[in-house]
């Protein structure tokens, strides 16, 4: 809109204000005359003309409403062009004179009827009313003259511009039991460009609404059978169609009913008889409202879809393939995460670093929803990448607390929202069951088995991640024995509320685990999930829920390797190499590896130095075995009889050249091994060295 047109608009608004100020006192005065007249005729018991006084009162109320509404609908309908100012003037005169026509006509008719009754109160009231009608008509003629406004262009053909200015079109259902009203309204609306369907009764209207996609309903209030109010109530109480805007049509003396309808959910009302401008404006508003409602519904649906996609994407961030158990992988894992909203802040993970270390963790981001989900995504990739990258690049298996240190410092760097994560992370050696666990502000893990009561594995508890740089974390060491399991969870489990507002609590969790007879992780997770479901029933889930169970399965010792050894000291190097390879594969401690290497050195050097009297090469055998509990070295050689168990301990001598077999080295062997076995079979020494792993500190 140009500046010039804005000022035209303002001028018109001022003019209308002036007209309203001039006419309103007359309109009010005449309304009160109309009411008096109605009362008077009632008291004089002119039953047959009572309807006419009602018509006069209604027409006067209509006039007053027209005057009051001058600056609203008319200005909205009026435009910025001068030629439409002409139309506004013409239409305004029409709208004001139409009720006056009724007032004048009915009044004159009543006067004729009263003729024979001579002077009466009614008579003088009618004369007064007619005189005021004439005054108002004169005022309209002199005052409803709009100034010719400046214009950029003047459009000549303007007859239809009143109707063609409809911008918002839609599909409208008109409901009225009166056929002629239906015809007038539907033709009027069709002319304005709307698509119109008609219904003669409430039930017919409801049928049409449920089967068609209407933008708006025009509903008459007074209908036989089901009335407008009843139809409206049914529409507004049916969620499928409650969004449909309803405009109630009513005569002016039905205002009480109109108020009821507005309270019952009607969007607007239209007084009868219809004013085309008002009709157009209100229908436009109603359809616009429906369009906005539809848009917001579509927006909600789109956001819902996006959230569901985010949920899928997030659930894909955690592994769902749970490894099958074998001798090579004797650790079973199962887990479950259940976000309270579409997107959650909880997560779990498990992954191998190298061949023998299974890392596992459960974490809980502060708060829930999308923001928490983003933070979770960032943390979940760090928690996996850090130990993997260290191992890949530096060959170093990090301790869990070292990983926590790194994640914490990283998360502290970009964290304006002050989000934080509690996390319990551990790694287990899949053959030995050695576990290291570090805790950043999380609930402790629970250990369960058939033999001992469920108990929590208390760990040193550091700050949650993301709060304070350089926070301290520590790894706690323990061993998971065969058939024992660990259960990790987030506080969404213990804080789950029942309908009675009771917490699920540690007690119920312990109890659920204690009752189990079998302990496969899948069963453990399923059992706790089910216990939670039974406990909470249909209560709303407030927090994300995450469960992870890990169990070490029983297995037999595995023969890992047999190697041939020469009967020279070179065999020491070979044995040592094999042991280091074994350690890399099975992850027993450096102490175990070093002890076994020393023992092997002793057995081999004893054989090489003292086992043979000939100068030939001999081939001996070393069998290396390992299981979760022990490392076993078995030497089979064809050297002379030598039983390390019974050989005397000989004090070191100054001259090593004269030293005998056995000696101080054998003392080492006896001391460093947990078991030492010997037998002579078929002219060969069978020497077995066993180192237990479960006592490893």
């Amino acid at each position, binding site marked *: 809109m140009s500046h010039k047109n804005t000022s035209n608009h303002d001028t018109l608004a001022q003019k209308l204000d002036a007209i309203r100020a001039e006419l309103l006192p007359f309109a009010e005065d005449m309304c009160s005359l109309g009411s008096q007249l109605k009362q008077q005729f009632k008291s004089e018991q002119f039953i047959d003309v009572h309807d006419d006084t009602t*018509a006069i009162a*209604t*027409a006067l109320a209509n006039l007053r409403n027209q005057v009051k509404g001058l600056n609203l609908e008319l200005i909205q309908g009026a435009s910025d062009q001068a030629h439409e100012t002409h139309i506004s*003037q*013409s*239409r305004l*005169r*029409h*709208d004001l*004179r*139409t*009720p*006056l*026509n*009724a*007032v*004048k*006509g*009915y009044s*004159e*008719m009543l006067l*004729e009827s009263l003729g024979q009754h001579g002077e009466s109160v009614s008579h003088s009231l009618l004369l007064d009313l007619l005189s005021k*009608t004439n005054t108002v*008509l004169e005022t*309209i*003629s002199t005052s409803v003259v709009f100034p010719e406004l400046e214009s950029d262009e003047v459009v000549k053909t303007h*007859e239809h511009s009143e109707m063609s200015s409809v911008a918002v079109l839609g599909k409208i259902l008109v409901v009225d039991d009166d056929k*002629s009203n239906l*015809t*007038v309204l539907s*033709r*009027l609306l*069709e*002319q304005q460009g709307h698509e119109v369907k008609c219904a003669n009764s409430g039930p017919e209207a409801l049928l049409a609404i449920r089967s068609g996609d209407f933008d708006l309903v025009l509903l008459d209030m007074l209908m036989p059978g089901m009335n407008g109010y009843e139809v409206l109530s049914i529409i507004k109480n049916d969620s499928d169609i409650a969004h449909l805007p309803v405009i109630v049509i009513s005569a002016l003396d039905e205002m009480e009913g109109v108020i009821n309808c507005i309270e019952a959910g009607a969007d607007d009302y239209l007084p*009868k*008889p219809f004013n*085309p401008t008002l009709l157009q404006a209100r229908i436009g508003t109603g359809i616009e409202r429906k369009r906005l409602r539809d848009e917001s519904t579509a927006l909600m649906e789109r956001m819902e879809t996006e959230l569901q996609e985010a949920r899928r994407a997030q659930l894909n961030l955690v592994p769902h393939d749970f490894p099958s158990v074998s001798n090579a992988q004797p650790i079973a894992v199962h887990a479950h995460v259940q976000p309270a909203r579409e997107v959650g802040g909880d997560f779990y993970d498990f992954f191998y670093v190298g061949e023998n270390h299974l890392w596992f963790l459960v974490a809980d981001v502060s708060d829930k929803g999308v923001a928490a989900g983003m933070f979770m995504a960032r943390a979940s990739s760090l928690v996996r990448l850090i130990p993997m990258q260290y191992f890949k690049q530096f060959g170093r298996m990090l301790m869990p607390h070292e990983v926590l240190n790194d994640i914490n410092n990283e998360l502290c760097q970009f964290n304006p929202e002050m989000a934080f994560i509690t996390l319990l992370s551990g790694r287990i050696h899949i053959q030995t069951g050695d576990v290291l666990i570090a805790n950043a502000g999380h609930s402790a893990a629970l250990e369960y088995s058939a033999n001992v009561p469920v108990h929590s594995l208390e760990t040193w508890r550091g700050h949650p991640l993301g709060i304070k740089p350089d926070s301290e974390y520590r790894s706690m060491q323990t061993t998971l024995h065969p058939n024992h399991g660990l259960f990790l969870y987030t506080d969404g489990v213990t804080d789950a509320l029942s309908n009675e507002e009771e917490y699920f609590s540690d007690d119920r969790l312990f109890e659920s685990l204690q009752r189990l007879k079998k302990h496969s992780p899948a069963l453990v997770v399923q059992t706790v999930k089910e216990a939670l479901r039974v406990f909470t029933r249909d209560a709303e889930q407030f927090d994300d829920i995450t469960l992870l169970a890990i169990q070490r399965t029983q297995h037999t010792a595995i023969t890992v390797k047999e190697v041939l050894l020469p009967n020279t000291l070179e065999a020491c190097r070979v044995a040592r190499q094999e042991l280091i390879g074994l350690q890399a594969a099975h992850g027993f401690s450096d102490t175990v590896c070093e002890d076994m290497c020393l023992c092997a050195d002793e057995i081999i050097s004893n054989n090489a130095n003292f086992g043979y009297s000939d100068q030939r090469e001999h081939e001996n055998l070393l069998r290396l075995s390992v299981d979760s509990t022990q490392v076993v070295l078995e030497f089979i050689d064809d050297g002379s009889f030598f039983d390390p168990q019974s050989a005397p301990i000989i004090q070191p001598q100054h001259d090593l050249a004269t030293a005998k077999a056995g000696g101080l080295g054998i003392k080492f062997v006896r001391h460093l091994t947990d078991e030492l076995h010997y037998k002579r079979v078929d002219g060969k020494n069978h020497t077995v060295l066993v180192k237990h792993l479960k006592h490893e500190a």
Partner: protein
Amino acid sequence: MTKVLLVEDNEMNRDMLSRRLTRKGFDVIVAIDGQSGIDLAKSDQPEVILMDMSLPVIDGWEATRVLKADTSTKHIPIIALTAHAMSSDRDKALAAGCDDYDTKPVELPRLLEKMQTLLTAESS
């Protein structure tokens, strides 16, 4: 009795004027919009038509043009009635083929006089 067709969309004004004309001895038939006005004029052949100009669907000007273009109805005199009371309306009504013009509110004696003039002219 003289048959008058009153084409008027406003319910109260239709009721009021039809009753007043009935009292004056006319046989009044009514139509509520331009299209039904045209239909009734053709089927009932009134002797005079009182046509409101701001009608829904087909307005009074258009209805008048149609009636005056149709051989079965072009002889029926039409008096335009409008509440707009703009000086240009009279010219427009006459240009559309109306035989006379009056404003609303209706001055009944004046309207009756105009009707009488037209009826006399037609019958002579």
